[in-house]
């Protein structure tokens, strides 16, 4: 533990990190500050995770706390429920979101309702991390975005960072949260950019959207890796003197609709962008709320720019599947046509 403490002091400063490094930093910080934090997953130990998110952690914190598991996703979903009920804060990793489905049973039937069904006697402060999304030319089943399935489950939080600093702050918040959190990491931007991250243990709120660009003409709502294309779209629109406001949802559940409504009440126009298939995607929930409480602000139809309702194609066609800046711009221009 002495070694860990030294390391902690050393790393208390600011560093330019990629998102995957920021995830690792947050995990290290959590392991350091709270001895009930336990990491588990496939290949997270000596290998440091297939994306290196846990690189070096087994050396610093030992194989008891950074545990390679057998290849058993249902178990990886369920064992943490037992650990959490007994006072630990497990952070489990599913290697790719395409392999997360066997975990859903444990999340719906146990993790998300342990507090409710025992009237608070038992709680489940576990975090389930998984890289998700397309665009890295990964093999079949490695590129899906199924956040909407989780956002429908009562009792859960669903969090998706879009930058290194938000990854750090949101993951720390997720680990400290007293209830179960699904933390989905947009792997396409794991190494896309570096950002200054202050390793001071500062968490970000888990019930707030982030307005990442101010603008008065149209609201662009997105999360995760699609923030990149959305920012690009905003830049193209700026060339036409259109000022886009961009909201990074970050925490899908519970949804901070107030921030989105405030923006749309100003712009009257909204384009929602996500990578997951359109139908039943989480964009539907946001658009539905705009059709409800937000209706009177809308001057134009709500557009959703999303993945097609198709199976995520293999790498050759994945570029044609994912929303592009051009598609976002085109949607924005359509909604701007309304007076």
């Amino acid at each position, binding site marked *: 533990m002495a070694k860990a403490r030294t390391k902690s002091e050393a790393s208390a400063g600011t560093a330019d990190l990629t998102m995957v490094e920021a995830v690792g930093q947050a995990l290290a910080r959590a392991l350091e500050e709270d001895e009930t934090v336990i990491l588990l997953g496939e290949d997270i130990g000596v290998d440091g995770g297939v994306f290196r998110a846990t690189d070096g952690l087994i050396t610093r914190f030992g194989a008891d706390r950074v545990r390679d598991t057998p290849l058993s996703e*249902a178990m990886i*979903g369920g*064992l943490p429920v*037992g*650990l959490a009920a007994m006072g630990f804060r497990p952070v489990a990793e599913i290697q790719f979101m395409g392999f997360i489905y066997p975990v859903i049973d444990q999340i719906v039937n146990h993790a998300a309702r342990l*507090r409710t*069904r025992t*009237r608070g006697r038992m709680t489940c402060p576990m975090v389930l991390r998984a890289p998700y999304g397309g665009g890295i030319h990964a093999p079949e089943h490695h590129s899906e975005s199924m956040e909407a399935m989780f956002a429908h489950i009562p009792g859960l939080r669903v969090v998706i960072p879009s930058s290194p600093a938000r990854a750090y702050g949101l993951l720390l918040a997720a680990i400290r949260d007293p209830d179960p959190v699904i933390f989905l990491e947009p792997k396409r931007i794991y190494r896309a950019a570096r950002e200054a991250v202050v390793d001071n243990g500062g968490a970000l709120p888990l019930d707030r959207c982030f307005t990442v660009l101010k603008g008065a003409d149209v609201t662009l709502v997105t999360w995760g890796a699609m923030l990149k294309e959305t920012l690009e779209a905003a830049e193209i629109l700026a060339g036409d003197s259109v000022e886009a406001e961009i909201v990074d949802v970050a925490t899908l559940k519970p949804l901070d609709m*107030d921030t989105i409504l405030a923006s749309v009440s100003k712009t009257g126009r909204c384009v929602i962008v996500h990578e997951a298939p359109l139908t039943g995607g989480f964009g539907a929930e946001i658009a539905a709320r705009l059709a409800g409480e937000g209706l009177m602000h809308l001057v134009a139809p709500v557009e959703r720019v999303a993945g097609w309702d198709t199976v995520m194609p293999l790498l050759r066609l994945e570029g044609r599947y994912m929303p592009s800046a051009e598609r976002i711009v085109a949607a924005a221009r359509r909604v701007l046509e309304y007076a």
Partner: protein
Amino acid sequence: MSIVASFEIAHTRVLGPDGKVEGELPPFARDRDALVALYRWMVLTRAFDAKAVALQRTGRLGTYASGIGQEAVCVGAAHAMTPDDVLLPSFREHGAQLVRGVTMQELLLYWGGDERGSDFAGPRQDFPVCIPVGTHAPHAAGAALAFKLRDEPSVAVCIFGDGATSRGDVYEAMNVAGAWTLPVVFIANNNQWAISVPRPAQTAAETLAQKAVAAGFEGLQVDGNDVIAVRQATTEALDKARSGNGPTLIEALTYRLGDHTTVDDASRYRDDEEVGRHWKEEPIARLRSYLTAAHGWQKAEEEALIAACAAEVEDAAESYLAASPEPPEAMFDYLYEELPADAARQRAAMLAQE
């Protein structure tokens, strides 16, 4: 060709169906009081079961899964545990929960459709009933890992049915428990039926105990209608787990004498003759015969015990029926430690509807 591994599945029994000693009597079972205690728990469990079924039949309880015939598995297993161990029951182990200190009122609340029933005043670390078959097995591995990491002597005891042994998550949980030498005891409560599916249709494995072979640890069979054998096998498995030697799977052979639940009609799929045969093996009469023969158990004692159990059950049922209703907003109040704004608005909307 060479043989690279070999395995044997042992079966133990102390009392035969007629209550005669067939195996070796373990030390604890030489004590009359100890046996009477086990006997009383079994009688109480059966009385509770009967009352719960009666309450359901008269519309005062929800669907209920009676454990009649399986009292020895529940009582024997739970009685072997220390207070610091953790029980992870399935949904038919009322007897085990009672022995652990869950009150009958709590059990009735739960089966009566009130979540407060799972907020046990007694064994606060014990898990609530698990309805999705076998899904609690990974929790047992998790709890056991917690004990191991904290270097505590506690053991997780996970009970599930014969049907549950076909579930992948039970296998995954056993496998990781083996791989990590976790302090957990798995008990397969083999009552021969999973609703209408008889045990041989569930798996081609000759025994359920041998499911442990796949996970790399010991599996054994015990006569599940012999509370002495169950208690002893559990004690040994607990000791082994506590001393760092990992998990055990105990297959307890018993029989579901009743319907699957109060909404089931077992006569649709099994004949009375089979049930009748198994009545001759049931655990309460068996221990009573032994107590009578070996320890001079008296008719008066029997009557007093039955009357006391009946009174306890009636008391519990009365306080259950008298419990004040839970406010509906309770469904929001334990969802998260702090209710998010979004859900808080729904809570208000629900209350505004009154």
